[in-house]
């Protein structure tokens, strides 16, 4: 029961906050703190379940085990820090901000605690929505573009994920907890992975993350280091156990993670903008996480769990420090960093505290995580070397930053309210000393929840003089060396135009689409019709199963032949007539023949509808003709023959379909049922109407909804024309 209460409470705060003129910050921070404390006190695993749509197997169900609890604690705990920081960082529009960020927090809380697949997806998409609102906080063009880019890059793979989730439901797996028992189909798992990996900014879908740095610092610290990008990691973690049967996929994950690690780490070295540097190191760490999860062994899962925790701590404090630098020193790029250490020693202390954790120096938490990670990878493989190299790059970019902080500067007063980054940085250090209780309560159960098994090594501050320790030392040394070398050069000259490459790729894409659109959407109705008919006829002809030639049942009698001749001659006349009005009238003639046919075969409703529609169409066309020339333009004979061929071909295909559909065997149970039940159940003598309105009412509802949508679209198109000059024209009949 606790979980929906917490979620509901957060939702309430999210809705109320924008309307509170002064208390928005306080109530938002308080809500996060309450959630944090409650989760900490809960004896997980905890479950909650209530049915929602039973016929589709959808429940509103939540399940918090240690893995989910880890994320819940991170979301709410770091949320407190972020919100406190934002109170001083964003002086204006605070109620709106707190509303949005609490909404995001709600979405993340719901996502990691959701057990039912549809509930999970609901909260997943809610995070996309909430993060869109937060990334475009500043409201300028750059922010809007970045937000849209993040939306599309995470939203479209989200739809692929939905397909995967539906695939799971089709196999009877409705909850995440069902994944252990049944064998989920591989394609569904891959679809889900795609959505998760896009959200976690893996290569090649990583580029939205550096772009999203236009968001204010608290937002970046929350979304793009601690919570949202970890949502994908959360989901991949849940899939590690089912994927044990598919080692190829796990290896692919490893490769993808390593590629992301190296790519992100490499590019972070060339960044001059501080937040972009941090963004790329985040991409690299996310790659590390996916890599570790892809290794799929109990040790690597243990490593991943600890990396999730400690990375969130040090990265959020680094992002917040970047915010302080931006606000107090207007220092956004690395060139402007000198002298900060002397001006604000506490800020430099924060940067060093978090950075040392990032590099992996004992006794910081990051070191603990790194040791387990190194142990998890086979030390002779190239994976190991790649992993180490990636860590060196990450560390080096931080060193490049940290080293620039020194230099002469005048001491400034410590700004009140902006000192929140101290908390996560200090926590990264403090938790390392409380490692055993932490591991027993949180880290160990989380790893066991993902993949039961014994790891090769536990969470310790000191494992002894092992190979891993040597490698860690080597990574630290390498990071310092590389970083110092980079810090000697001016950052602007080493700025990799990763952005430039992406921009050129996007521009190319847009150019190609414009070219294609210009070829296809020419504005000519004839062309659109040709394309539609061709595509429809070809796809049906190609995909339809081979139909045997069906013997016609019965002979056509005189009336049928007469109608046939009339129809054919009307159609022929419509093709040949030179005037537009004549063509319309003769085409209407075909419709009238159809009406007669319906009436002949006792379908009066159809006949009536058809007749009225036909007359309306002809009339409207005739009225519109007053604005067009009277006669069709002269065209080349070859284009006529081409149109004839397309028309004939499409017509034959559709005729074939109608013929095949209306031939025996024709199951008549449906018609018997309807005829029998109309007078009694539906109280109707007109069976057709009863079917439309009563028996199959939902189908009709769908159809009329589509009609309304079409009307909305048409009203937009029609509304854009300039007002007609006068109504005094009369049709030139």
């Amino acid at each position, binding site marked *: 029961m606790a979980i929906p209460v917490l979620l509901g409470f957060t939702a309430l705060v999210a809705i109320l906050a924008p309307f509170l003129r002064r208390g928005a910050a306080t109530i938002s921070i308080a809500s996060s703190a309450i959630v944090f404390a409650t989760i900490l006190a809960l004896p997980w695993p905890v479950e909650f379940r209530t049915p929602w749509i039973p016929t589709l197997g959808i429940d509103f169900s939540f399940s918090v085990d240690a893995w989910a609890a880890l994320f819940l604690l991170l979301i709410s705990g770091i949320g407190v820090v972020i919100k406190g920081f934002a109170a001083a960082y964003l002086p204006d529009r605070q109620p709106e901000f707190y509303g949005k960020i609490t909404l995001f927090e709600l979405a993340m809380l719901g996502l990691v605690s959701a057990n039912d697949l549809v509930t999970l997806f609901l909260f997943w998409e809610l995070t996309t929505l909430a993060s869109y609102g937060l990334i475009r906080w500043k409201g300028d063009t750059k922010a809007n573009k970045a937000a849209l880019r993040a939306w599309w890059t995470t939203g479209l793979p989200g739809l692929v994920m939905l397909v995967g989730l539906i695939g799971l439901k089709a196999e009877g797996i409705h909850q995440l907890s069902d994944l252990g028992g049944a064998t989920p189909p591989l394609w569904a798992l891959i679809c889900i992975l795609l959505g998760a990996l896009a959200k976690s900014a893996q290569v090649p879908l990583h580029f939205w993350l550096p772009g999203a740095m236009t968001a204010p610092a608290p937002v970046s610290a929350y979304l793009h280091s601690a919570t949202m990008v970890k949502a994908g990691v959360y989901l991949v973690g849940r899939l590690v156990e089912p994927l044990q049967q598919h080692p190829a996929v796990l290896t692919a994950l490893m490769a993808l993670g390593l590629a992301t690690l190296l790519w992100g780490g490499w590019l972070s070295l060339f960044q001059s903008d501080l937040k972009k540097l941090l963004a790329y190191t985040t991409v690299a760490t996310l790659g590390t996480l996916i890599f570790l999860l892809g290794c799929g062994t109990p040790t690597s899962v243990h490593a991943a769990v600890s990396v999730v925790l400690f990375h969130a701590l040090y990265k959020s404090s680094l992002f917040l420090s970047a915010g302080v630098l931006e606000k107090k020193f207007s220092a956004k790029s690395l060139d402007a960093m000198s002298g900060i250490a002397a001006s604000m020693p506490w800020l430099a202390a924060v940067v060093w505290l978090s950075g040392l954790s990032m590099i992996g120096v004992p006794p910081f938490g990051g070191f603990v995580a790194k040791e387990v990670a190194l142990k998890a990878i086979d030390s002779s493989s190239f994976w190991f070397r790649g992993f180490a190299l990636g860590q060196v790059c990450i560390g080096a970019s931080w060193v490049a930053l940290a080293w620039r902080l020194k230099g002469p500067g005048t001491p400034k007063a410590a700004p009140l309210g902006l000192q929140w980054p101290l908390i996560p940085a200090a926590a990264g250090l403090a938790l390392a000393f409380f490692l055993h209780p932490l591991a027993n309560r949180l880290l160990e159960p989380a790893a066991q929840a993902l993949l039961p098994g014994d790891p090769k090594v536990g969470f310790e501050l000191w494992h002894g003089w092992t190979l891993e320790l040597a490698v860690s030392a080597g990574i630290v040394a390498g990071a310092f060396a590389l970083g110092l070398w980079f810090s000697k050069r001016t950052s602007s000259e080493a700025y990799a135009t990763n952005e430039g490459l992406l921009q050129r790729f996007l521009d190319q894409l847009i150019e190609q689409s414009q070219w294609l659109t210009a070829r296809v959407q020419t504005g000519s109705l004839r062309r659109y019709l040709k394309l539609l008919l061709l595509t429809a006829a070809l796809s049906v002809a190609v995909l339809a199963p081979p139909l045997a030639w069906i013997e016609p049942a019965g002979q056509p009698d005189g009336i049928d032949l007469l109608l046939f001749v009339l129809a054919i001659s009307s159609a022929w006349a419509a093709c040949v007539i030179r005037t537009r009005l004549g063509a319309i009238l003769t085409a209407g003639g075909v419709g009238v023949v159809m009406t007669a046919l319906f009436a002949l075969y006792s379908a009066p409703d159809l006949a009536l509808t058809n007749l009225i529609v036909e007359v309306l169409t002809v009339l409207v066309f005739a009225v519109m003709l007053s604005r067009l020339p009277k006669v069709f333009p002269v065209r080349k004979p070859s284009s006529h023959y081409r149109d004839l061929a397309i028309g004939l071909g499409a017509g034959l295909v559709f005729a074939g379909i109608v013929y095949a559909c209306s031939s025996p065997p024709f199951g008549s149970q449906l018609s018997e049922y309807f005829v029998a039940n109309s007078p009694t159940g539906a*109280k*109707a*003598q007109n069976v057709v109407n009863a079917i439309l309105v*009563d028996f199959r*009412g939902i189908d*009709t509802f769908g159809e009329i909804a589509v009609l309304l949508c079409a*009307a909305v679209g048409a009203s937009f198109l*029609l509304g854009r024309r300039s007002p007609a000059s006068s109504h*005094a024209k009369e049709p030139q009949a």
Partner: protein
Amino acid sequence: MRTPIIQTGARWVVPLLLLTGMALFVRGHDAPGGGFIGALLFACGLIYQHYAFGLPGISRAYPSRPLQIGAVGLILAAVSFLPGGWFKEETGQGVWIGISLGAFGDPKTGTPVLFDLGVFLLVIGMILTVLVPPHDVDDAPSEPNPQTEVGHR
């Protein structure tokens, strides 16, 4: 468009069309007819009226009217599914109320009729949206434009 022929015709035909449309709608349950057909005829009547006389007096309110009518129709249709959930086992089942008007007989009232009414309104709204675009509607007086009279050439 506003020739005397059309206008004279409209005076007779438009009420006929409107009434026939409603009649077809009401009889749809037991005889050929129903929401679609009735709406088509009704809309024909309205359009004829528009072509002959304009639709004076409502032009300012007009631009969103047809879509609003259509939306009301959709809402009615959706609402008609609900009583089934309350009074019978499944949503969407028809719920019938017996009303007797004495000498006028017993009109059938129930959720399918409500649904049909929704369809009726929606189709009218849709046809009006497409065939009578907002910029065609104005407050023009309903007398025939003297310049288009047939005799004056």
